[in-house]
């Protein structure tokens, strides 16, 4: 990456949100960012979860942070200097959140300016947002050209996702895209879980991808080695999502397709 070379095509900024906490926004941000970088794109991840930063941990970059986003805003260093280069991908960078401040230490306009500057240098700027629909979420959404809403197939998560979609529709953003995370195979599903079809029917937005529930994701997060490098179904799911973000048509994972085909047939015969 070089800040001086003139690239006249502007990058795209994508905010990852959910409403409900703990559904996998940060995991999704890191893996989409990594997968896009693996496709040869220049990617910058921006952690806006001020006070609860964790993208650095998920990427294994914790011990490399010198400056964070608040240092940039308060002009203790310039943007370029605050970017942390990924260990594995040459074109993947992180702008870390501050751990010691709170959400009110950044404004929409300040973030908008940072994102605009990053878009000059990167193909994709992926913004991880804090949970909830309050200030932190609104600020994160302010700098984005696109939005991805992450949900799990649980009722409560879907309802919160719906709320967030409604709020995003009021912004000038295009209709957000959906990722359903932590899909369990139909055998281990329990009450309160919805099918992919049901979630999509309720939320009525474009489905960008589905990610299986997989222990490996948690392990990868703990090790700071994003699952997107991996050949597991979850890793593949994230790489497929990255392809779809770039406009490729990639079918949903075969496993899930079979599940839903089976279910559809059951419905057809009237005992589902």
């Amino acid at each position, binding site marked *: 990456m070089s800040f001086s070379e003139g690239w006249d095509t502007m990058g795209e900024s994508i905010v990852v949100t959910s409403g409900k906490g703990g559904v996998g926004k940060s995991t999704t941000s890191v893996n989409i960012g990594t997968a896009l970088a693996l496709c040869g794109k220049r990617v910058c991840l921006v952690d806006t979860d001020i006070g609860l930063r964790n993208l650095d941990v998920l990427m294994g970059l914790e011990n490399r942070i010198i400056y964070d986003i608040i240092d940039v805003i308060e002009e203790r260093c310039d943007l370029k200097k605050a970017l942390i280069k990924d260990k594995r991908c040459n074109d993947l960078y992180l702008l870390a959140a501050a751990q010691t401040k709170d959400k009110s230490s950044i404004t929409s306009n300040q973030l908008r300016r940072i994102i605009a500057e990053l878009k000059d240098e990167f193909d994709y700027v992926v913004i991880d947002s804090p949970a909830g629909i309050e200030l932190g979420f609104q600020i994160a959404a302010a700098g984005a050209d696109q939005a991805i809403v992450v949900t799990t197939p649980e*009722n409560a998560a879907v*309802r*919160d996702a*719906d*709320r967030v*979609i*409604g*709020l995003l*529709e009021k912004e000038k953003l295009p209709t957000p895209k959906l990722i359903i995370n932590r899909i369990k195979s139909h055998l281990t599903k329990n009450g309160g879980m919805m099918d992919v079809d049901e979630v999509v*029917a*309720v*939320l*009525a937005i474009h489905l960008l991808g589905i990610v299986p529930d997989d222990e490996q994701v948690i392990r990868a997060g703990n090790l700071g080695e994003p699952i997107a490098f991996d050949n597991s179904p979850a890793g593949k799911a994230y790489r497929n999502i990255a392809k779809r973000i770039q406009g490729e048509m990639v079918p949903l994972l075969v496993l899930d397709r079979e599940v839903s085909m089976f279910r559809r047939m059951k419905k057809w015969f009237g005992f589902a």
Partner: protein
Amino acid sequence: MVNGVKPGITIKGTKDGLLFYLDDSRPFSDILSELRHKLEDDHAAKIWDGPEMNVLIKLGKRQITKLEEMALRELFASRKNLIIKHFESDGKPYLLEQESEIQMRVGTVRSGQIFSFEGNILFVGDINPGGVIRSTGDIYVLGALRGLAHAGSQGDQQAIIAASVLKPTQLRIADVISRPPDRWDESEVGMRFAYLVDHQIAVERLVHLSKIRSDKEWKGNR
């Protein structure tokens, strides 16, 4: 003036324009013919030619239909300089709300959103859990009703709620509140509607709507 009785139409000039008082105790057809006479009769009509003037029409206690409004406007159209600014009924909207009228809206009511309406509404789209659709009249949802619907929100107990998929978190008609599965059977599928009987909300399959909307029933050709 006509037959020496008190005129059905009184006209007053004000600084805002001409005020037309239409007597609300006379049949509307009488008012129309008297107005036509006043506006078209060449003898009386002389006064009308002149500079542009605003016209305010006072209907008294009377409310009129869209058709009646059009009839009035047509009469005034014969005098190019008379421009109707507005109609007014005492303390009420001047237009009669037409029971049979139904308006359509398209969209999705998402969690945390409230869609409020006056009159009968055909909503094409879903009302999601946590979303609210509310109307003073009937609510027909061509889509899935999974949130809260409140029909007859100003107290109309005749109002109904119908949906292609009726799976609400709560239903309200006038001031009666009901929630599943208290009163209706979850397992039932297909289009259903909810209405009030004995101050309770009942849910039936849509084919039974003719029971409570018999005036609207199409009986088929003999």
